[in-house]
């Protein structure tokens, strides 16, 4: 008997022959490249990957991944993916979605998938604008933003996607940025290693309708000054010279403190992504809205002790069969009171 070891998968194995139809310069290209780069490293056979999407620019994603793929309808990707995952828990199911798809029309499915802890990885491409419909504001657009549908400024207050996911008690919540390739890949790999629901907000630039939306974080020097990389077990430090940190106040709130003058890293909060309760992660997710605070990226929360939804459902089936034996259809049809007519 001979066994032929299959050659290891490469990035090329995940590329399709379909012409990619995103605008040149779109942040989506970088995300596609990162996903195609990490999929071969996950030790999952290619046929077990399923990429599901809704509607929007980001939702073209499945067509460019040489895996099983389902481009569904607007907002419904988490529900389609849940059906796939419940029916076949062994599949590796990823959802590609956008700020409109996941948080406006599909907001309901997003939060319910997260609260159930279905083992699906969600990549939310957040460009803070509606791209495919050519430039209306989205649920993550800033208050007062002038867009095609809000010539006098948006009256809506935005969602913070990370806060929303943590509020739904998602067991894995992270943030990454399209142009920070290494950090993006690390975050994707951390999500892949998580068994339960994993939610990643990816800050993505739409160079046509909302160019520079994340420039405050991505342009030269901004990253080091305004972005704080979260690392489990490490203190919350940021700044070009790593000279600032986040400290817990006596009232439970947090504050930014300069390091030095007697304040050392040992005074700072040590990041604990594995905490079972979501309140600390929620506090972190809100700091970027406060003056002087950085925008955290990386893994906010990765608590993997909760059973996956699809396992709970399928375990119930296994347990009943173990207890009662496999169902006998004739007996089921004849259940209850019966009578014979001769």
């Amino acid at each position, binding site marked *: 008997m001979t066994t032929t070891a299959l050659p290891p998968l490469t990035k090329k194995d995940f590329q*399709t022959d*379909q012409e990619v139809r995103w605008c040149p310069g779109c942040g989506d290209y970088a995300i596609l490249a990162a996903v195609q780069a990490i999929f071969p490293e996950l030790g999952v*056979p*290619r*046929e*077990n*990957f*399923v990429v*599901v*999407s809704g509607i929007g620019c980001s939702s073209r994603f*499945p*067509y460019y*991944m*040489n895996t*099983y*793929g*389902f*481009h*569904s*309808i607007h907002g*419904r990707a*988490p*529900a*389609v*993916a*849940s*059906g*796939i*995952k*419940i*029916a*076949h828990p*062994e*599949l590796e199911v990823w959802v590609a979605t956008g700020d409109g798809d996941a948080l406006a029309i599909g907001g*309901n*499915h997003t939060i*319910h998938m997260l609260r159930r802890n279905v083992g699906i990885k969600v990549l939310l491409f957040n460009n803070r604008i509606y791209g495919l419909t050519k430039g209306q504001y989205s649920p993550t657009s800033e208050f007062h933003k002038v867009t095609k549908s809000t010539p006098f400024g948006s009256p809506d207050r935005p969602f913070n996607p990370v806060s929303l996911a943590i509020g739904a008690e998602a067991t894995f919540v992270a943030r990454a940025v399209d142009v920070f390739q290494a950090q993006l890949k690390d975050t994707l790999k951390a999500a892949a290693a998580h068994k339960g629901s994993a939610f990643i907000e990816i800050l993505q630039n739409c160079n046509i309708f909302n160019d520079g939306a994340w420039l405050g974080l991505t342009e030269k020097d901004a990253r080091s000054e305004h972005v704080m990389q979260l690392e489990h077990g490490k203190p919350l430090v940021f700044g070009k010279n790593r000279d600032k940190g986040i400290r817990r106040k006596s009232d439970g709130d947090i504050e930014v403190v300069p390091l030095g003058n007697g304040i050392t890293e040992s005074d700072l909060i040590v990041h604990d992504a594995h905490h079972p309760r979501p309140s600390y992660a929620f506090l972190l997710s809100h700091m970027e809205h406060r003056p002087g605070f950085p925008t955290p990226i990386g893994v906010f929360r990765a608590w993997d002790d909760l059973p996956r939804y699809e396992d709970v*459902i*399928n375990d*119930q*089936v296994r*347990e*009943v*069969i173990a207890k*009662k*034996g*496999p*169902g006998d*259809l004739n007996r*089921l*049809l*004849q*259940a*209850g*009171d*019966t*009578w*014979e*007519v*001769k």
Partner: protein
Amino acid sequence: MSTLMDVPAGKTKREVIDQAVIRFAGDSGDGMQITGSQFTNTVALYGNDIATFPDYPAEIRAPAGTVPGVSGFQLNFSSEEVHTPGDSIDVLIAMNPAALKVNVGDLKANGIAIINSDSFKEGDLRKAHLTSNPLEDHSLDKFRVFPVELQRLTRSALQHLGLDAKAMDRCKNFFALGMCYWLYNRSMEPTVRWIDDKFKKKPLLAEANKLALKAGYSYCEATEAFQISYEIPPAQLSPGLYRNLSGNQALALGFVTAAKKAGLTLFLGSYPITPASDILHELSQYKDFGVLTFQAEDEIAAITSSIGASYAGSLAITTTSGPGMALKTEALGLAVMTELPLVICNIQRGGPSTGLPTKTEQADLLQALFGRNSEAPIPVLAAATPGDCFWIAVEASRIALKYMVPVIILSDGYLANGAEPWRIPSVDEIPGFPVRFATDPEGFLPYKRDPETLARPWAIPGTPGLEHRIGGLEKQDVTGNINYEPLNHEKMVRIRAAKIDAIVQDVPNVLPSGDPEGDLLLVSWGSTYGSITQAVKAERAKGRKLGHLHLRYLNPLPANLGDVLKRYRKVLVPELNMGQLLWVLRAKYLVDAVGLNKIQGRPFKQNELEQKIEEMLGRQEAR
């Protein structure tokens, strides 16, 4: 042994009759549905043919004693074949003035009214908006009225058990049931067994309910109140093993059977909605058959999760009623476009909007046929009787899997909750339809079709070498790649339509019952089957030349339907809507059919149909 008073057998007369209609009516908290089901089960076990009509309010507990809170359960049982719960009633059990007020209009002259006289105090009458007491004002003179102190008598039978008054009063429906068993000479055994099982963990309540039941029975014996009792011999049904089955139960069993016959796992994605929720309740119990049930966050997630499960290789179904169907519309289009098998059950209710949640209607036919954006044809099947729901579930699943299409099943509130004796098939007598997934990468293309059925291959995730993408965007023929070319689009629209048309090869030709040609053909679909069958039988007995055609396949329609329609001088289409099948038949076959339309949340009565037949054919024509 019973602890009840020992009474000598009464010297009452026993009369053998062939049929009776009984209706239990009370507050929605009075247990009328349970009482009715118990009586039904007992007479069915005895061998009578039955048809039932549970009629309950949408409110869980409307204020006690009021008209909106009245819940009723009607049963027609007979030594002959029955198809309807009956137009008018022989025996009415009324637990309070409101129940009497709502139902007495249907009681036949000289019919029996058993009335709980303990609930006819001034306050009770006021709650029912009655200005005088019907027990005293002679308004019931044309009936045989039996006022019974149900509350006092039940309490006195149970007082030694040490239950509080409320718990004792809750047993009074079984006192009334016991009286009915005496009246129709039926054994209390099946109900005693049911009580023992239901209150397994509460032996005191089991004892109380059994005592109340027996007390009601003994009361009739001891008081000789009725002076007459009835005997309805068993009906001559075709041989076999029978059980009593409701439409929703039948659908659930049908889907479990279909999954087994297809060799697939059954997946149900559903969101609770009246009157469909019982299918979810039923299927969630069948874990030993590997059934996966997913109570989704909304109607849209219910169907889209099912589409996901179908994509992953399950026999996927979703169950709902009209408002939920409206929400599922966009996803139906996705199932059409991705050509995945799926069965969607619409248990119709009165509408539009929230409408009459607990009442029956057949007004979603055009929604099922056309209710989607663009050209999105879907096969539609409709069940005729509660038991037929089983066979429709199997058939809809078979078609969905064979042709790789979504299929809509139309049932309605009347079939869902109504019950009839159902001959239990043996699993082996149901033909199998094993599914074969695509596995061979050689020449695989996601939209390369089977030449006979036009079905595309079902290649499920996890199959090496068949990785492919599907979605809602227009596809290129054969490859399934996104394609916006004008001619390709037209081609694909026509292929999707041709595929549904091709299903006609699985639709049996129809043969009308009654006269094969003649003066009038009645064409029907769905739950009106029973009352129309009964009406046609009665009118043919008067010498009229009538045919009855009942359609179970509404898309595609049977190939010979057009020919059959031409064999009669006139065509009548009775429907519980404004004329939807009528509209289809007139448009498709250019036939000058007329409608009989009732939109009252209730089924047809036999005499409404007979009147229409006589109006169309003229009374003098009868020979």
